[in-house]
């Protein structure tokens, strides 16, 4: 039979739990009162932006209204707009969607950018790390150039991570990241809309993925075949 617990020990335990409960309540109240500040701070972790500085080229990666921003920078004196070409997917091959670099040329031309000033980076670039490597190569081939990199605000730190990995410090210093805000949300209100919530969650997932995958090779691209589309409803897995 276990020895009876002394009354002092019981009262100590009770007061310890009371203290814990009080602490939890105070913590919850503080989180409630400062939630805006806390959520803004969390989203700020996803954003990386270099201080504005004049550069000779603009690189288009992603981001809301990126063509408007690129055209504005072009009017302000940047003479080269860099775009990249991805591997054409089946919608591009069918002619349903334009190739990304063709779309960029079309939209930039509409905004007054001369076609001669748009340069396509060499190769078919399908992942962030490959794009970053191509940017590094281009900067090494053009040692006099500096580039403003336009990217989505909540993806900017992921791009920073990728751009600094393959490049040598001399190249990294010549890249200035311009984080473009989305028209619907920013760090101070992302939790009020569905696109904002998704961008926030996906921003952290992306960052985690790239931070872990940095030293690994990119996974292979696999395009599904018509036989696999048929197998989706016949259950026949043999191609």
């Amino acid at each position, binding site marked *: 039979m276990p020895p009876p617990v002394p009354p002092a*020990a019981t009262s100590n335990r009770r007061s310890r739990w009371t203290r814990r409960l009080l602490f939890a309540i105070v913590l919850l109240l503080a989180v409630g009162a400062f939630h805006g500040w806390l959520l803004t701070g969390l989203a700020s972790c996803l954003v990386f932006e270099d201080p504005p500085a004049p550069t000779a080229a603009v690189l288009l990666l992603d981001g*809301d*209204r990126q*063509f408007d921003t690129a055209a504005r920078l072009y009017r302000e004196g940047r003479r080269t707009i860099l775009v990249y070409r991805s591997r054409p*997917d*089946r*919608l591009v091959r*069918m*002619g*349903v*969607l*334009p190739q990304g670099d063709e*779309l960029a040329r079309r*939209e930039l031309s509409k905004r007054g950018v001369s076609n001669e000033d748009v340069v396509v980076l060499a190769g078919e670039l399908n*992942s*962030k790390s490959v794009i970053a490597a191509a940017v590094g190569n281009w900067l090494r081939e053009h040692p006099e150039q500096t580039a403003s990199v336009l990217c989505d605000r909540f993806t900017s730190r992921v791009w920073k991570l990728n751009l600094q990995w393959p490049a040598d410090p001399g190249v990294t210093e010549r890249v200035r990241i311009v984080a473009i805000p989305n*028209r*619907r949300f920013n760090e101070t209100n992302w939790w009020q809309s569905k696109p904002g919530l*998704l961008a926030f*969650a*996906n921003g952290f*997932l*992306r960052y985690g*993925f*790239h931070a872990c*995958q940095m030293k690994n090779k990119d*996974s*292979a*691209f*696999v*395009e*599904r075949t*018509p036989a*696999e*589309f*048929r*197998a*989706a*409803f*016949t*259950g026949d897995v043999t191609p």
Partner: protein
Amino acid sequence: MKSVILRRCTRRRLLAVICLAAVLIVYLLRFTILTCLGQWLNVGQRLDEPVDAVMVLGGGALTRPFVAVEILRAGLARKILISRPELSDENRDGLIPSELEIMRQIVLRSGIATDSIVLMTTVVDSTEREAQVAAEYLKNHPAERLAIVTNDYHTRRTRWLFKRTCGSNFERLVFISAPTDDFDGSNWWRYESGLILYVDEYLKLAKTLIR
């Protein structure tokens, strides 16, 4: 007093060992666990009997309409219903065509006749809304059976939502899993888009369960 403290320390040490062991087991079995999590989302069925129409859900123009086209080519359906997702900012800015137009073009360029294509009129912004549109369709076409085509990772939530919305008409639905380019349930975590789609799907699934 000493024995109480000693007992508490031993209990804490035991708890720490159990936690460490659990973490180690999860780490060693991580690929099996991730594969199970990925494959659990896929509840696609075979299409053993012909249906009257195939409904293509919005959000996966790269593969979903191609499966629908193959179903029509195999003679297992007569028409394709294309859902009408709300316009994105890129559509409104005139950068790319709407998803409805993209899907329509895919189906047309795959050789399917125009009269086999039905463009839904209700604008949808979620799978739940698409389920409501399907429920309405089944109510207005009481003799028809529908095949719902969506991506493999999306079939479980779709099934839940359609079951909740369509009631007794749910029996007239078959769910088809369209494969996704690059990854599937067995390797989704190795791809950036796979990780995002599968984790988002679990978050949305949790939201569906709570509501």
